[in-house]
């Protein structure tokens, strides 16, 4: 069979007694959208942190397209085609929304001419389009400090997309996004990803979204994958209902 896009083997890490990752072994196949759900503090973000080299596991490896990237710093992993949108948006707050994307594009394309204006880079239209995709075209020229939490979340996702990754990791993409817009945005997002053949892994607390957009669901608990399977069956699973979803779904 083909090598999985991302594979982790026995990832383990603890923070002062707290087990954040407990022997996590997971294969992520290209082309399928994996949703990660689980109670708070289960280790979802930590998992993304390890996969992107932000923290080093005490034990275990991360393989991206078969290559061991465990020891690499985030930028090296990103250069290999992994992009990430964060649970707490990470943006250049003193640049405008558009500039944030243009800079991402520049980082992606490599910055050749040191004297051309960032705003004149060819990627401009593409980036404006991305902003529209996440309903932020209207704030394209506002500084990020001036934006609301939800707006930042969305732009953070757009920045990750701007990198044209093979694998996109999103940490609670829709949390803080107004419910009226969640659906629309996910819709556009997922189709765009499909077109661009981008595999996505997203941590999500909104089961509606999971149900609708995930090809597969992994349930995290106490630092490890408790269950994995198709959304339909997982979301019916009693444990999941007890620990994650709650009675009235």
């Amino acid at each position, binding site marked *: 069979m083909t090598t999985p896009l991302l594979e982790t083997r026995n990832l383990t890490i603890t*923070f002062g007694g707290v087990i954040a990752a407990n022997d996590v072994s997971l294969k992520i196949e290209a082309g399928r959208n994996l949703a990660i759900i689980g109670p*708070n*503090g289960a280790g979802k973000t930590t998992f993304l942190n390890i996969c992107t080299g932000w923290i080093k596991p005490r034990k275990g490896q991360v393989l991206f397209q078969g290559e061991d990237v465990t020891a690499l710093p985030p930028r090296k992993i990103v250069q290999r085609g992994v992009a990430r949108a964060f649970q707490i948006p990470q943006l250049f707050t003193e640049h405008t929304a558009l500039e944030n994307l243009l800079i991402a594009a520049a980082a992606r394309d490599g910055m050749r001419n040191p004297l051309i204006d960032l705003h004149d880079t060819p990627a401009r239209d593409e980036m404006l389009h991305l902003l529209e995709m996440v309903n932020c075209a209207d704030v394209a020229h506002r500084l990020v400090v001036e934006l609301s939490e939800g707006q930042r979340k969305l732009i953070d996702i757009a920045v990750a997309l701007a990198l044209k990754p093979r694998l996109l990791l999103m940490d609670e993409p829709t949390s803080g996004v107004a419910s009226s817009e969640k659906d629309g945005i996910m819709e556009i997002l997922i189709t765009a990803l499909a077109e661009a053949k981008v595999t996505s892994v997203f941590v999500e*607390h909104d089961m509606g979204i999971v149900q609708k957009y995930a090809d597969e669901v992994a349930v995290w608990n106490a630092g490890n994958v408790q269950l994995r399977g198709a959304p339909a069956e997982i979301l019916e699973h009693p444990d999941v209902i007890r620990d*994650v979803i709650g009675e009235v779904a």
Partner: protein
Amino acid sequence: MLQLKSLDASIGIIPILRGVDISLQAAETVALIGRNGAGKTTVLRTIMGFTKVTRGEILFEGAPVTALHPPKRPALGIGYAPEDRRLFSAFTVEENILLPAQAAGLDKGETRRRLERAYHILPELKAMTDRPGGAVSGGQGKMVALARALMLGTKLIMLDEPFQGLAPALAQRYAEALRTLRDTDRSVTLIITESNPALLRGFADRTLVIERGEVAAGTLDAERTPA
């Protein structure tokens, strides 16, 4: 008990809120909804005194607080849980929760009582009392911020997207807990901003919709809250 009278507020030089009129009865629960960037957070921050009020005034229990020095406001009995958690990483979770009480100079007994109340509503926190505030997960952080708001919030509690990032099971449990809190302690008024009204269904007495810094639709009663 709280009134915003035709309020204009700006952040820096940029005007955000325009002619906001809100008036809350004691002990009612109001949901503040609206799309991203509508101005929900700004309303709360304005009540806390972190924006520049350019017009109109704020009355708390009849007394104007528009010009009141921000740090004096929590002492009036206002608890505020900011959207972006804002925990003090140098302190443990419990210290984070206790700090408001200590700053307000509450006596030991009272502080205990309120701490108990917080833990009663958020039992999950008991497990992580002495973890550094900087070392909790996103959702855990929201819980701590919530608990911290409960410490001083004897009259008014303002929660900015309290359920954001919480696993649904937990979120429901909190909605429950808040309800019980409100039912047991009839004096508290709750303002909850939420971009996901479903959770508040049958819980908020009223829903205010904010659009581009203005209170758009008037009040709708709980039953007709849009899902």
